[in-house]
């Protein structure tokens, strides 16, 4: 029986294109983002639509390779490819792009992207433990706030920013509640369904509507579970996927795990569980930009050094989600995740679980050879 868990979510990206077009015609502003480090609270406080534009599909990569080297992360190439080929309506309708100096590939790609559309690149500090990093990030938030005010002729009062913090926190909490459903054994939602939901919901123009949809889904899954509806059986190998981000179009590892009899019960990557526990404290009465800066410096991304937070999170998730094996996905040429795999491997093996690192790109060319490795990995779990 085909799962209908993701029903209502599959078409959000397509359906919302018309809504975006109408909103734009009525003078609404839109900002394109590429990373979880982007302070979307400020965009929302400015009354603009915030939409994630991270490229997760193979198709535009050929366009990107006219300007970018082949030996580069497919996420960067796909993101740029969509922009340069003008095949992403969300990029097309964006008034402004906000990028960050996360990794070398991205920051240099943004220099090229700036030729296509107004792009502001935030200077992301990379040592999360230093006070100077917090100060720099707070000042970058101020720069973006002022830019949004000037660009969109609006004022970002503390009150508006706090309201946006509240909205963003509620979104994170509902995502966490959804992901946490899979702490149950057997799990309740397949990895592919979870990805469809979490990826598609980001294209909602009306964020309250997105929260409502997720709440309805949680109820639906719980009701389904009460009648014995689960994803997989109690003995199905429960896999944690960590590493570089995955979206629709680049889900081949999840698909292969699930075709081979396993289940990706949770993803640690951004777009997954990485940020759901990282909230700005709403009771904190200090300057909201400072509160936001502290929030963003807690994101355990591999561009940070040191980045012990990621290992602590994986450790905790392995226990809470009753994980049987961990797959660490590295997109080709992503040095920071590739190197960090050393520590992840160490941690997972110390916990007595099988570990598999996969370095690949978005293409389907290695699908069958990856299948052998993933099947062999699942054989180790059993």
């Amino acid at each position: 029986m085909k799962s209908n868990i993701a029903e209502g979510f599959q078409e959000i990206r397509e359906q919302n294109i018309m809504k975006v077009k109408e909103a734009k015609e009525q003078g609404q502003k839109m900002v394109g983002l590429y990373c979880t480090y982007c302070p979307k609270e400020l965009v929302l406080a400015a009354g603009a639509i915030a939409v994630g534009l991270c490229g997760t599909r193979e198709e535009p990569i050929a366009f990107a390779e006219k300007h970018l080297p082949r030996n580069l992360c497919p996420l960067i190439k796909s993101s740029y490819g969509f922009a340069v080929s003008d095949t992403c309506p969300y990029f097309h309708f964006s008034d402004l792009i906000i990028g960050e100096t996360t990794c070398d590939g991205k920051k240099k790609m943004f220099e090229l992207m700036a030729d296509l559309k107004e792009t502001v690149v935030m200077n992301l500090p990379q040592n999360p433990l230093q006070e100077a990093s917090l100060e720099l990030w707070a000042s970058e938030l101020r720069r973006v706030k002022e830019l949004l005010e000037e660009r969109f002729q609006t004022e970002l009062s503390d009150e508006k920013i706090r309201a946006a913090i509240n909205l963003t926190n509620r979104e994170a909490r509902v995502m966490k509640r959804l992901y946490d459903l899979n702490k149950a054994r057997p799990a309740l939602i397949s990895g592919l369904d979870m990805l469809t939901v979490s990826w598609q919901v980001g294209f909602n123009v009306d964020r309250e509507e997105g929260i409502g949809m997720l709440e309805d889904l949680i109820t639906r899954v719980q009701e389904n579970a009460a009648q014995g509806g689960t994803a997989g059986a109690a003995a199905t190998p429960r896999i944690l996927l960590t590493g570089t981000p995955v979206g629709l179009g680049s889900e081949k590892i999840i698909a292969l795990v699930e075709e081979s009899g396993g289940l990706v019960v949770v993803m640690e990557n951004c777009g997954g569980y990485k940020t759901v526990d990282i909230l700005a404290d709403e009771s904190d009465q200090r300057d909201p930009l400072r509160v936001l800066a502290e929030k963003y410096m807690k994101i355990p991304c591999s561009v940070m050094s040191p980045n012990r937070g990621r290992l602590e999170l994986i450790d905790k998730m392995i226990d809470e989600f009753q994980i049987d094996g961990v797959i660490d996905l590295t997109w080709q040429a992503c040095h920071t995740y590739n190197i960090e795999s050393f520590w992840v491997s160490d941690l997972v093996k110390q916990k007595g679980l099988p570990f598999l690192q996969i370095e690949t790109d978005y293409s389907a060319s290695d699908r069958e050879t990856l299948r052998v490795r993933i099947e062999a990995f699942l054989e180790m779990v059993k």
Partner: protein
Amino acid sequence: MIAAGIDVGSVATKAALILNDSFYSIMVPTGWSPREAGQTALNQVLEQIGATAEQLQYVVGTGYGRVSLPFVSQTVTEIRCHARGASWLRPGSEIVLDVGGQDCKAIRTDRQGKVLDFVMNDKCAAGTGRFLQVIAAALGSDVSELSEQARGHKAQSLNSMCAVFAETEVIGLLAAGVPPGEIVAGLHQAIARRLASMVQRLGPAEQLVFTGGVARNESLRETLEKILGMPVLAPREGQMAGALGAALIARDAILN
């Protein structure tokens, strides 16, 4: 009780039977049809013991062509089969290195031949049988002659490990008058280094079992032994390890 294993590789298809603790095997070229090759190998190995397909109780298929075999009871990855087969051939080995026609894999196993960890090179021909074939062709010889050719020669250092660029480099070296023996010795050196780094990623070990078609190259085995500083055992039936492991897994299935 007859348990059988079929390993359909990119170059050769292997079939193994286990009957009363003895093992019988055969190898045929895979050719263009993995399905036909699997059927042929199975028929031929059955003939060896004068049995028929009806007497087979359980058949496990493995190798890249495993999904195209209609007659198997179960498919298992070649990683698990090689681990099982190699540790049956040489009990007590902790690491199995299998180098086949289109990939190579290093596997850490426990005493029973169960997979504990593995690394695999599957995106690039470097260090595989395919790589040796390409270079042998550039030298005008056959892959089976390489081992003899390298014997007693110092190793000419090679810069490229990409099958395409290495071919060009070899042609250039020949033109510069470098003796083919030195080129082959250098080639073995380069491949062995690459294989050694895969093995070393699995941590320390006392000895290694080397299987797959490429393990028949004795010069390469010796070079690998020197680099790793541990015994590298290449059992005579090494190319059968996958099929044998599949047959052993089939026997487990019958006994359970």
